[in-house]
């Protein structure tokens, strides 16, 4: 499927209740409360709760709010037209000031790719839903993200540090990690 078609299909799963009547109105019931604020009243409001973008990347990027994450992921996997059954990269990123996770998905049947991003501004106690039950590979990858960024995943079977020792303090890959002894900053 082309990026355009994917965008329309996936966007339609999470319609924005604040969409104006002039934009496409779907019959499906609203999913959750509005979590997106329109920039300016004059701009057309995004018909979907998800943000799509293709700039600065070779794949279609979808940004989703943390509460819709698990829903979106299971639909992406199970829907026959998208069928993203291969999660090949799960990355934690410290977008100062937010923390986020980036999922790269591919479909082995339709051979299309998509990138899903989720961010949270909470740096003290960030958590997202685990997608372990959708793709088993996420189990190890999420442990790695927890180890390096401190992002907790709900419903994860075994969330503990993977590479570092259990009594390590701090989360090394965050941009504000300070280690006087071992880190050499130019």
């Amino acid at each position, binding site marked *: 499927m082309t990026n355009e078609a994917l965008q329309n299909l996936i966007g339609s799963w999470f319609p924005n209740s604040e969409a104006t009547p002039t934009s496409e109105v779907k019959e499906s019931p609203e999913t959750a409360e509005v979590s997106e604020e329109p920039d300016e009243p004059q701009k057309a409001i995004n018909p979907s709760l998800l943000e799509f973008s293709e700039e*600065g*990347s070779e794949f279609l990027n979808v940004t989703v709010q943390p509460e819709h994450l698990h829903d979106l992921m299971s639909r992406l996997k199970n829907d026959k037209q998208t069928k993203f059954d291969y999660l090949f990269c799960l990355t934690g990123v410290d977008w100062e000031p937010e923390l986020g996770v980036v999922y790269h998905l591919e479909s082995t049947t339709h051979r299309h790719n998509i990138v899903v991003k989720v961010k949270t501004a909470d740096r003290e106690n960030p958590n997202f839903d685990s997608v372990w039950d959708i*793709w*088993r590979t996420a189990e*190890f990858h999420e442990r790695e993200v927890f180890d390096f960024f401190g992002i907790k995943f709900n419903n994860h079977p075994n969330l503990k540090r993977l*590479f570092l020792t259990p009594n390590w303090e701090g989360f090394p890959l965050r941009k504000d990690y300070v280690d006087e002894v071992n880190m050499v900053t*130019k």
Partner: protein
Amino acid sequence: MEEATVIDKNFKTEPYQINMGPQHPATHGVLNLLLTIDGEIIKKVEPDLGYIHRSIEKMCEADSYQQIVHLTDRMDYLSANINNEAVCLVVEKALELEVPDRVKVIRTIIGELTRISSHCLWWGVMGMDVGALTTYFYGFRDREMLNDIFEETCGARLTMNYNVPGGLMFDIHPNFVKRVKKFIKHFKTKIPEYDRLLTGNVIFQKRTKGVGVLSKEDAISFGTSGPVARASGVSCDVRKHHPYSALDRVTFKEALKTEGDTFARYQVRIMELWESLSIVEQLIDNIPEGEYREKTNAVIKLPKGEYYQKVETARGELGVYVISTGTKNPYRFKFRSPGFSNLSALNHMAVGGKIGDLVAIMATLDLVIPDIDR
């Protein structure tokens, strides 16, 4: 009335925990496996990683792109050239730099020779793990020939660093083509020898057939790639689906099997040896003339954005994910290593089998621990 003998219903066995510790001849590096065993049957396998974690991803955030190439071949040191190629490709993709044809062809040839070398070592170690200690030497004998070829051209035997963003570090040595042709001729007689020694052996087949089965859906769900996934029927060869360098001009078959057991993984790798030989044969005679390097700035700055490049190493699909904000160091550099996902399938495959099966499964997963730990 006489009482029948009562079997004590409270008699039960207890599983015990064993460390297949970081120093162990069968774990191919410093991997600690916490096994929960009941007698001889494995109940749970939990890998304990981090013994060789060197924080490569954090280091990349402070290094320039040319320096990052040198870090990559310490990750999966058996496919060092292909790792280097991955980073060079991602930088060239971001800069929209077109490398000369000569560079592409040489990169592919060296990449396939690296794959053959890695599989030679894998075969030797596979035999050693199931008990046939002699195969180790036979595998290494052929690998030595390749190491000598690499040393002459690239300057090193293990961490080659021959690829740089923009091309190659030096031109190929004048003897390169001749020696590679000699190697191909020699190796074509050796693979049947490998088959006679190990593949056809009844004891070996009994040790590996039906052991550690991974179904197709599980293979995709666990994110496995490379020979592990191809033995379960998943067509995932990056060289076919997202070809890079000169791989779009060669014809080769993708090695696929459907059983998903240890023997299928073994056969897939042997088939890959034949296919790699055929790729090198197709390219070695027609290396185009031209420059061996394209000029780049001394300080490489990738434009703002995100870039992803996949390559097929000997272990599976290596992914390089770069987030750049336009400065000379990347903002985030992530390596998606094939061994990491393959290892997550180990628990699923090994539960219910015996310790001997675990060793055979680990041998066919072909893990290189520095690749997993980064």
